[in-house]
């Protein structure tokens, strides 16, 4: 991560923790209320490409962690700097219940499908998202299926194994 | 005797066309270093398709195929095949020129009724390609008609038998070149395989055909292969007074274009039309002017 950017971040925001572990592994941990301002700050500092939004379920801590993966494009006339090629992770912890977050669509329009996916698989409600309808799943689940307390084995035994085999009266069936 | 040939010549055309289809699959396989299907695989496919249940999509869906097949069958009566030419005394080249558009048109009517978007794309490409190759083909046919001063194919074949083949005689060799360049488009071979294009528009107009409908379309395809090649042999390679020699000439022409088919990728439709309206049309026009200047 660029040193000047680090200094600017430190001076602008107070409750911000920057962790740098080796190359291409820099993360910024912020409180959930500061996410939008840090995102817009990073966007103005050149990190204007949102790769993905991801979610981690820390069931022991009782929290969900949302991760925004940002990167930047080279500007015309800019010298290549390996520090600029690195991705930047913006992380925040939100409570598992109720899991709420502000939608980042006003800043990054590409966030729309990622937020839909996280809503579907982790049950996070994004406030301000225009249509939080299912993206991948055809069925509805009581617990969102990617949460750690979703017992897939139990679900398979309860639901899929309960579907009856085809009963054939011709005598050829098993 | 003429009545017998009226019934026999479409049958011969059908058998020859289906055999050509089977041969094309075998030769293509050998070029790909595969063993390939049996020679009679198209016959097996057609038997299978006729015995499958098939769903219709409306009256025009049924009628379009019939129109297309009937158009192709009628052309076989007008085309001399060796020394057999049941109806060629009445009609000649102009009839064939008209009827050759009925094949694609019938498929277009029928495929359009199915309402599948892939079929619509295939149909628009089919008609576009037909317009693309009809223009240079018209130049070539006009040159041939001017050269021999007749529209009767039987007469043209007779003159060629007496002297030399058209493609080997001076002013017509230019038109012959143009004809050679258009042939892959008329046969629907690569690089002009834009109509079916299974990888991009799932076999185009045929996407909704199943069962006996697809069987009829395969038969129509076989017939159109036969018609295109035999027209070329009659006009350019001197036809023949003998069925065996005629078939042999057809085989040589077919295998030639099969080699082209095996090694080329596919044009996009606008590239295909641009090519067809540039090179073959230009060469055909030069050929026509040459024939008009040199005279007969």
């Amino acid at each position, binding site marked *: 991560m660029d040193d000047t950017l680090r200094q600017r971040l430190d001076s602008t925001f107070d409750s911000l923790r920057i962790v740098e572990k080796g190359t291409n592994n820099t993360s910024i941990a912020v409180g959930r209320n500061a996410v939008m301002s840090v995102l817009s700050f990073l966007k103005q500092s050149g990190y204007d490409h949102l790769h993905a939004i991801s979610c981690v379920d820390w069931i022991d801590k009782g929290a969900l962690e949302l991760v925004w993966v940002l990167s930047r494009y080279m500007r015309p006339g800019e010298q290549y700097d390996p520090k600029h090629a690195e991705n930047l992770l913006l992380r925040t912890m939100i409570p598992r219940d109720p899991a709420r977050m502000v939608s980042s669509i006003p800043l990054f329009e590409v966030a729309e499908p990622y937020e839909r996916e996280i809503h579907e698989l982790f049950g996070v409600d994004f406030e301000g998202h225009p249509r939080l309808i299912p993206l991948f799943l055809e069925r509805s689940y009581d617990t969102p299926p990617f949460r750690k307390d979703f017992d897939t084995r139990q679900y398979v035994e309860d639901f899929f194994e309960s579907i009856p085999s*085809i009963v054939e009266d011709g005598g050829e069936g098993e | 005797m003429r009545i017998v040939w009226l019934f026999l010549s479409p049958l011969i055309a059908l058998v020859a066309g289906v055999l050509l289809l089977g041969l094309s699959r075998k030769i293509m396989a050998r070029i790909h270093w595969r*063993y390939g299907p049996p020679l009679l695989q198209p016959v097996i496919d057609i038997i299978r398709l006729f015995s499958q249940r098939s769903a219709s999509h409306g009256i025009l869906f049924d009628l379009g195929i019939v129109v297309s097949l009937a158009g192709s069958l009628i052309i076989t009566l007008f085309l001399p095949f060796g020394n057999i030419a049941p109806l060629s005394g009445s009609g000649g080249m102009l009839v064939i020129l008209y009827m050759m558009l009925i094949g694609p048109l019938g498929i277009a009517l029928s495929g359009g009724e199915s309402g599948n978007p892939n079929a619509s794309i295939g149909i628009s490409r089919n008609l576009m390609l037909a317009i693309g190759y009809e223009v240079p083909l018209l130049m070539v046919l006009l040159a041939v008609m001017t050269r021999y001063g007749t529209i009767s194919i039987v007469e043209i074949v007779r003159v060629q038998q007496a002297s030399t083949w058209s493609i080997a005689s001076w002013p017509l060799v230019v038109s012959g070149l143009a004809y050679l360049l258009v042939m892959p488009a008329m046969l629907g071979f690569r690089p002009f395989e834009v109509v079916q294009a299974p990888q991009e528009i799932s076999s185009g107009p*045929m996407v909704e055909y199943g069962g006996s409908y697809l069987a009829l379309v395969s038969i129509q395809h076989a017939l159109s292969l036969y018609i295109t090649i035999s027209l070329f042999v009659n006009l350019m390679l001197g036809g023949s007074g003998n069925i065996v020699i005629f078939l042999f000439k057809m085989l040589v022409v077919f295998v030639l274009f099969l080699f082209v088919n095996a090694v080329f990728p596919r044009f996009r439709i606008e590239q295909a039309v641009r090519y067809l309206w540039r090179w073959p049309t230009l060469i055909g026009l030069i050929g026509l002017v040459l024939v008009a200047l040199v005279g007969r």
Partner: protein
Amino acid sequence: MDRNQLIKWLEAPAKMGHKYSLHAVYFCTGCGIIEVPPSITARWDAERFGVLPTASPRQANLFLITGYVSVKTLKAIIRTYEQMPEPKYTVGFGSCPINGGMYWDSYNTIKHLDKYIPIDGWIAGCMPRPEAIFVAVTHLWTLIDKDMADGYKRYRKYYSQYRANQEKVLLGLEWPPLFPIEAG
């Protein structure tokens, strides 16, 4: 072609046609489809058995289900299967369609495909090699010869059960029943 074959052709041309002209739908589910390109191209050349991929389900009579089936894929599979003209044959390829395979304890994978559409034969393995497809094709020939590849007849006969299972797992279907369902 020997004499027995010729007699069979004369006795039952339709059956022989179905045997030697198996056109498969080019439909990919899961990872098994990676074995299909080598088996239809120069290395294994499926065309010498009359097996050819077709682009449209209307033209096909063989349905190769090549890998795990998610709930969303099941919907597409049912649609494709119902569009194919009869007689049609289905073969499950790999262990995932048989019982879920290594994806058994997943919230979104279909475990037993034969509860939703009829299957005429299975190819076990993860992955089966392309040779296994040809073994399956020759087995399918035997089954067709003995009238045992009757999946499409079973689908018609027990359609109410199949439809009930499909609706249960997909939470209702958008299209009307293919065959009339008798009450009760």
